[in-house]
């Protein structure tokens, strides 16, 4: 996930258990029993273990919401700022230190309502950051108000400014220039983990929209509903073909199905980047004299 090697690679054996250290103990996790986010947590652990990443080099940026709590249920450095801001913090962190594995974990409300301004721009900027959206169609933490993906699959005939139709995370990502667009379902954590592994290896911004049912506030898009509607992307699909990706989305739409897997993946040619100087010894000698030239 970074193009320069980590400065010191710690000698820690990465096993699944490592991810439970420096984290809230299991029985203190405050998600509703059955919450989809449990699946996402499990998948993340699998993926990180698989990639042999160490907690020290991980930088988790949580959104605000039930989903964002995941940052504390998992080992690794973690940051949690303002609602909707996660991707922008992640952008700065990754630009400053490309050796970090920066992972943003947020809800659909955080990402697409208040945070859409960051989402759209980060898609274009394309930092090597993975974003997992725990998409449940509601604002869980504030007790179930509609999020921008609310209404998925509902047959609504008349709209208003107050109740607009849902929008499609995948299409928005594609249009905004995201170079890795995928979808997963927390009801199938193993498959999700595979996608996360791919996403973390992507040389650019990787977005995974994970259907993560809110068992408490979304009584429509339930596990069962998803099980009926999700469908793995056929093996033949070539995710590097943008037209094919759009075609796939259209096709699934027509059939009222939701694709699971990697819809689009097409890394962009990017300037290489290094960790920015930060230690006193790296900074102290900076010679500003050349700057004087322009003031003469």
């Amino acid at each position, binding site marked *: 996930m970074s193009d320069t090697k*980590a*400065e*010191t690679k*710690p000698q820690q054996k990465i096993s699944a258990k490592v991810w439970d250290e*420096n984290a*809230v103990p299991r029985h203190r996790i405050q998600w509703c029993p059955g919450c989809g986010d449990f699946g996402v947590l499990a998948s993340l652990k699998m993926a990180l273990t698989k990639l042999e990443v*160490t*907690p*020290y*080099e*991980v*930088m988790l*940026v949580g959104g605000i919401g039930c989903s964002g709590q995941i*940052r*504390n249920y998992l*080992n*690794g*450095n*973690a*940051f*949690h*700022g*303002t609602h909707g*801001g996660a991707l*922008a*913090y*992640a*952008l*700065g*962190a*990754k*630009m*400053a*230190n490309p*050796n*970090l594995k920066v992972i943003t974990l947020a809800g659909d409300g955080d990402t697409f309502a208040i945070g859409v*301004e*960051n989402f759209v*721009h980060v898609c274009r900027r394309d930092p090597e950051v993975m974003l997992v959206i725990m998409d449940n169609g509601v604002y869980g933490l504030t007790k179930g108000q509609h999020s921008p993906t609310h209404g998925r699959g509902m047959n609504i005939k008349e709209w208003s400014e107050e109740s607009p139709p849902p929008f499609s995370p995948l299409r928005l990502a594609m249009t905004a220039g995201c170079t890795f667009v995928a979808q997963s379902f927390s009801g199938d954590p193993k498959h999700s983990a595979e996608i996360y592994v791919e996403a973390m290896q992507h040389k650019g911004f990787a977005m995974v929209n994970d259907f993560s049912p809110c068992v408490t506030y979304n009584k429509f898009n339930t596990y069962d509903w998803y099980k009926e509607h999700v469908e793995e992307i056929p093996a033949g699909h070539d995710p590097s073909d943008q037209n094919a990706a759009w075609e796939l989305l259209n096709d699934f739409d027509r059939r009222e199905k939701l694709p699971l897997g990697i819809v689009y993946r097409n890394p962009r040619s990017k300037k290489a*980047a*290094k960790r*920015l*100087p*930060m*230690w*006193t010894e*790296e*900074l*102290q000698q*900076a010679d*500003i*004299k*050349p*700057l*004087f030239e322009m*003031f*003469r």
Partner: protein
Amino acid sequence: MVIVNKLKLLVGGVQLRDGVVTVTDILGRILTRAGLHILAMERGYASTIYGAHQYDPIVIDEQPPVSWGDATLDILVALDYDTNPDAKEQPNRDTVLRHAKHLKDGGVLVYDSSTGEIPSDSFVRRGIKIFPIPARNIARDELKRDVVKNMVTVGALFRLLDFDRDATNLTALLEERFLQKGREIVELNLKAARRGLEVVESVLGAKGWADAGYRLEPRKLKEQMLLVSGNDALSMAAIAAGCRFYAGYPITPASAILEFMEEHLPKYGGRALQGQNERESIRAALGASLVGVRSMVGTSGPGLSLKVEEFGVSGVTETPLVIVDTQRAGPSTGMPTKSEQGDLFLVAYGGHGEIPRIVLAPATQEECYSMMIEAFNLADKYQCPVFFLTDLNLSEGRKVVPESFFLKQKVAIDRSTLLREEDLRRNGDFRRYTVTENGISQRLAPGTVGGVFKITGSEHDERGFVSTDPVIRKAQVEKRLRKMETYLKEDSKPPQVYGSTEGNPVLVGWGSTRPVLLHAQQALQAKGVDAAVVHFTRLWPFNTAAAKPLFAKAQTIIAVEGNFTGQFSDIIQTYCLLPVRRIVKYNGLPIYVSDIVGGVEQLLRGKTDVVRIGDAAPTPVKVSEGD
């Protein structure tokens, strides 16, 4: 009598079209090289790109000028001409219409006479020497290149100032700039300047004037001098101080910092990001700081208002950040190209809940440099937002500063709160939010082997896990805010005091007004009023221990501020419990020496406690009762 090496001139014209800045830039560079001092603290321009009136007043002096003084001018240079002489209004005569009233009797007026002469009687009566220069016609008709019209004016101006008669200085500059494009361009420009000189000589001859009454004489330079703006100085300082990430969304007058950083930061291994909006920029900067890089954002009022929620993030997650606010006249979009000191309340009090924060406000270009170095160390130590308050005039205003000033500034980068791998190995159990006596805890850059941090804008325990336990909450709130006491004890500096405050009126100011306060102090002294000046550059947390004793024995306290309320006056009242009288100005113009002198006289007469500077509008319309 000819006045030598001491004058104020103003160049005005139509924005974008007339090249006001081209003229003052050439002037500035050449005079700086000639060893003269320049202070050009008001860049009069409009918040539109083309067509409005633009002006640039410049003080030239042998010694560093005390301040920009007053509106009064020695020389007025009007580059504007009328494109449409039949129009009822003549926007293109703005320079004369707006500024000629400030010309001294006996002063000099130069204007572009290409589209006609201006009525001169009133000027002649005031003894003003008028030089009509058909610069545009000369450029267009004789030299066939419109663009050299400004060089005609420069030539004229230099002749009026009896300066660079052989064009040595000008030639050197032109060769530097244009030689690689071809000798002809240099020659064309020199010819244009020569034509300007000739026109002036012909006027002098025709009028029988020996000279224009002013002269500039080059001085021997002991050292290299630089002509820098506040933005230049603070940007350089940030780089020197180890800032390696800068983010900003374009906004007047902070855009220049962004442009500086985009151009130069990469050379120092850093990155500069033009945010796609105000929040992306501050959040990205917080992200960079979080992982250990010294980072900074720059903005102005509207951008700062949009960043308020992130102040809290910085404060409660204890993530260092330097935030430059180049104040402009608010509120809302306000007057984007006019200066003001109206954001103090916002930086001191803005944001829900309570966080530690530090507010610095440099007075001069030099302090833009020295205090920025301080700002980064404070941010590192106190791990909270450090606001750096300039204003439009200080940020864009240019001043001659010796190169040695910058070179001799001590740049000691103190990052001792940031743990290294060795420290972690030594200390064992790392807790990001350890409750300490001074409120300061150790940080960690993610990626450092041996420590994991959990950071959150929610209330948290020492390990950074969310908590609402009342005991933990109380301890963390107090820990964070205790940093302000530590700062007051260890790092805050007292205000600067000029003169004795005992029994005298005490003039108080902050930020960019120090030069004019000191200037006014001199002027008052000349009138027999002994006033002290107490000037603050460390505004927040307010240093009561240092300030109150200074004020306690004052005859009267008079704060001079560039805002309506007297924001700093209110803060003094809060902490010192002493009444602060006020001279305030918020009409977009700089505070002048005469404003302060007049204001103090009025306050000493005792009729009022607040003097509001500026011409007032006609009597307000009465509204009928019951509406």
